[in-house]
């Protein structure tokens, strides 16, 4: 039960991060907001490392085993935060969550297929079910918008 709650909390924290970041970005600018995000994040990562049992030992051999592209995750993360801060105030939070999930899922399936040569049928079918449900709700919204605009 503890771990189930922790996982759900992890999900809640993702939404909170997105909205708080967007609020900050609206006031001080998207790039500036992203900057503070990384400054604070780095500070807390250092604190977490200090309290964890992990040792900060980076030897030459481990450095050589890391492919160069693996270091670009931080750069991709900057794009993610900049785009999220831009889009969050413009959309329903639920749709944003689900659409991000769709993009993540299908690219994840492609990455798995390319790197592990494995195609998970359950994930593909499940993904399409999510897509159907999402499209259904999006169409409902659009109909409503048409209704509103004809009333006015």
């Amino acid at each position, binding site marked *: 039960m503890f771990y189930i709650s*922790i*996982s*759900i909390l*992890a*999900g*809640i*924290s*993702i939404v*909170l991060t997105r*909205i*708080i970041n967007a609020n*900050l970005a609206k*006031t001080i600018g998207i*790039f500036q907001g992203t*900057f503070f*995000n990384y*400054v*604070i994040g*780095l500070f*807390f*990562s250092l604190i*977490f*490392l200090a309290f*964890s049992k*992990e040792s900060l030992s*980076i030897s030459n051999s481990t450095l050589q085993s*890391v492919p160069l*592209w693996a*270091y670009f995750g*931080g*750069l*991709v993360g*900057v794009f*993610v935060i900049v*785009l999220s801060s*831009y*889009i969050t105030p413009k959309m*329903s*939070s*639920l*749709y*944003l*969550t689900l*659409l*991000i*999930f769709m993009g*993540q899922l299908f*690219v*994840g399936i492609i*990455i798995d297929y390319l790197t592990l040569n494995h195609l998970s049928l*359950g994930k593909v*079918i*499940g993904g399409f*079910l999510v*897509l*159907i*449900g*999402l499209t*259904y*709700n999006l169409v409902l919204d659009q109909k409503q918008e048409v209704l509103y605009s004809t009333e006015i």
Partner: protein
Amino acid sequence: MNNLISAFIGALIAIMIMFNGTLSNIFGNYTSSIIIHIVGLFSIVLVLLISKSKIKIHRKIPLYWYSAGAIGVFTVLFNNLSFPILGVSLTLALGLLGQSLASILIDHFGLLGMQVIKFEKKKCIGLLFIALGILMMTIF
């Protein structure tokens, strides 16, 4: 267009997870988190310099608006705690459940300065499909 950008963010996250996962396999979770933040910080400073943006300290905005970076580190911690016990798929599915519930509440009540978007009962059919799909992905 907004929908497309949203799905694109998801695609970027998938790529980011692959990159960051490779790093944390080698360096460990917390050391890699530091590397990721240093690379990110370096990138955004470069963007700020190129776009000639200025950073001002605003005194009037609430302090918790700066907390997003800290919450992000907690997200990583929570995930690290449950991955070994619950497995990857269940952790992700529960995380998505948490995201969806939080989003529905935030939309409906317009929390944290967001627009109010009331929840409608007829959308339950769509949500049912979504829940089914997530269940399917978790089981198989």
